[in-house]
């Protein structure tokens, strides 16, 4: 029992010897039975193992089978991975995923940075503006996609087309989600609208960490606004940039909800991403084995890109 394995060493005033242990004395625990501390994490590990590790490892195993999601399966070696290399739709989805990720990462963070610089000033409405810009990030992605389907209504008098017509830009009206050349970029714009405010918040945190005295010193040295941004603010924003680029890259590579709800990968297969392909392979076509192979490739790809990105970005971080 615990009580028999502990002794209290009297403190300087000898209080422990005079009365009950108040807990203020310095305790030395003599370990009669050595119990490794890692046992404390056993319950958590058991839960983690059941909920995360087992399904993940089982997923890796199923990637080498022909499992249909129900019933038995047999091992098919690397057939699923070889099929993936010959699957035109999957390869098109890889290209779409990369393009979508690139567009989202560049535009979302660019706009996020501009918004952060804008609301990091002394204008009176900055608190309200921060709230307004961040608000879309807390809305469900599926809900955003449904709302934007109204914005992208292809009829001339409705949504974005109606607005363009009203301001004399009727020539720019488009079939935003129905045109195979545009659908992917329309989804990208929707994602940027939703998460630019999120990037803004991270950049804002970075901006608030830039010491005012550095700007003051640069100003005394004669640096203009651009030079102060380029040589003071920008280098010190590197940690915020690292976080934003990492999050938007990972988010872009596994983008599913918005694409599925807005275009379902169409028209045709023009906006399929790796995530929509792996969902359809599993739950529409009943090819769980092949789907888990796609998921495994996606997971490894995301991990590789993230690691490379992290190493590069960390190398250029500086501190104030």
């Amino acid at each position, binding site marked *: 029992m615990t*009580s028999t394995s502990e002794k209290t060493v009297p403190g300087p005033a000898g209080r422990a010897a005079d009365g009950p*242990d108040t807990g203020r004395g310095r305790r030395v625990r003599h370990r009669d039975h050595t119990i490794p501390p890692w046992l404390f994490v*056993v319950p958590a590990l058991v839960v983690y193992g059941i909920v995360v590790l087992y399904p993940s490892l089982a997923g890796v195993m199923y990637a080498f089978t022909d499992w*249909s*999601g129900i*019933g038995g399966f047999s091992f098919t070696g690397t057939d699923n991975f070889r099929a993936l290399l010959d699957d035109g739709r999957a390869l098109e989805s890889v290209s779409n995923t990369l393009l979508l990720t690139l567009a989202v990462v560049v535009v979302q963070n660019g706009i996020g940075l501009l918004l952060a610089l804008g609301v990091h000033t002394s204008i009176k409405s900055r608190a309200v503006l921060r709230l307004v810009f961040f608000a879309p990030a807390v809305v469900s992605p599926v809900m955003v996609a449904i709302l934007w389907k109204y914005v992208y209504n292809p009829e001339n008098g409705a949504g974005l087309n109606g607005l363009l017509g009203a301001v004399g830009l009727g020539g720019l009206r488009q*079939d*935003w989600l*129905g045109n195979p050349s545009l659908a992917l970029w329309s989804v990208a714009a929707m994602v940027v609208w939703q998460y630019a405010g999120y990037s803004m918040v991270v950049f804002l945190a970075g901006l608030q960490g830039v010491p005012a005295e550095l700007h003051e010193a640069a100003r005394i040295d004669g640096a203009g606004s651009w030079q102060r941004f380029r040589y003071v603010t920008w280098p010190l924003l590197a940690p915020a940039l690292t976080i934003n680029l990492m999050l938007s890259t990972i988010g872009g590579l596994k983008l599913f909800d918005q694409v599925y709800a807005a275009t379902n990968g169409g028209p045709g297969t023009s906006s399929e991403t790796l995530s929509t392909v792996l969902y359809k392979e599993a*739950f529409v076509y009943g090819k769980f084995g092949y789907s888990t192979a796609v998921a495994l490739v996606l997971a490894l790809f995301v991990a590789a890109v993230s690691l490379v990105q992290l190493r590069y970005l960390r190398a250029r971080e500086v501190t104030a």
Partner: protein
Amino acid sequence: MTTGSRFRPDRRTLGRRGLLRIGGGAAALAALSPVLTACSDSGGSGKLRLVGVADQQKPVEELVARYRTSHPDAEFATSFAPTDQVQTVLRTQLAGGNAPDVHVLYPGSGSAMSMVELAKAGLLADLSEQSWTKEVPSNFHPAYRHEGKTYLYSAGSSVIGAIHNKKAFARAGVEPPRTWKELLDVCAELKAKGIIPIALGTQTPWVTQLISYALVPNAVYARNPAFDAEMASGKAHFRDSGWADAMGKYQELQRRGFFNENPNGTTYEQQTSMVASGRAAMAVQVSAVLANFRQAARNPDDLGMFPFPGGDDAAKLWIPAGIVVGLGISARSRNSAEAKAFVEFLGRQQNVDRWARSVAAIPFKRDAATRTDPALDGFLPLIDDNRAVPFMDQSWPNAEVQPAHFAAVQDLLAGKTDVDGALGQMDEAYGKKS
């Protein structure tokens, strides 16, 4: 208890061993909980779990209420959700061995949750002993049966035709067409009067297939009823068949400007609204959605439905009529007897009629008291004359052909491919193993 004798009221901190005991106990409970749950359910709770798609909610709730008047002890836990969600959850439950007692089931083959796929995996209870199964017409057997056993309960068939706005037709001074040529003339008249002849919302994937399905019975099955068997044996292909004529006609309707602008960017809901409001004159749709169109219209009686004329001889017109989504019983149901009793109840003539009426379907069996939706009157003679063919996907060998058809039509409408290329995509998907 030894621990009780050593309890020290002044010690508030938990000892390491105590913590380990609690942790170990919690872990053991966590590990045991599935077993305990399984044990508690092993005898069957008596409450029937029924999971359906949203379209089934109305008839199921009505019939459950009626069943409970004669079986007051019967308890149900029903839930309904959109098709995608139900398919995802149900498939996982089937794989995990905890599927609901009664669940949505799709007729024939051609989808991952179809009767044939689940029956092959041994996941469905055999309903062949039930009396209603003997009354299923033989041409519907492929939808209800697999290897001679009935696994699906479905109230009947839903037809594909043109849901039209009578006022829009009257404004243009035209009547529902009875041949392909008449259809082109009517569309031209409507267009000239500034009315969109055919509303099309192919951004919603399942809408893409309806015009093909409406045209293919005349282009393919009227000429060659053995087409499905020839496809299965590899003798026929979409590319060299009447499918090419059907897709050509689909394209012709677009080329002549008879659809709304940008059909690939238009949704089913927008299509519904166009016809209900009279901006568009008609939409090729499945009769099951008539209720939605009526709901969107100011006056439900403004809407009617007629067979979409895919051929040039009105007396020899063929139509598509697919068995509507139904119910199956899980082979592992712990309430199998109760579930079968409920399905037997659903199979009674008056209940088949009730279900069919609520989804604007034509009951698989009819008697003198059967009343179908008046909008379907024009379809009954064709069904009775055996000029109806099941929806094509219900006989396709795997779940990839139907999505390939969706994508092919969208590509065709977007000008990304031609008829040959579109049908090539479908042939490629057909050739994949299930």
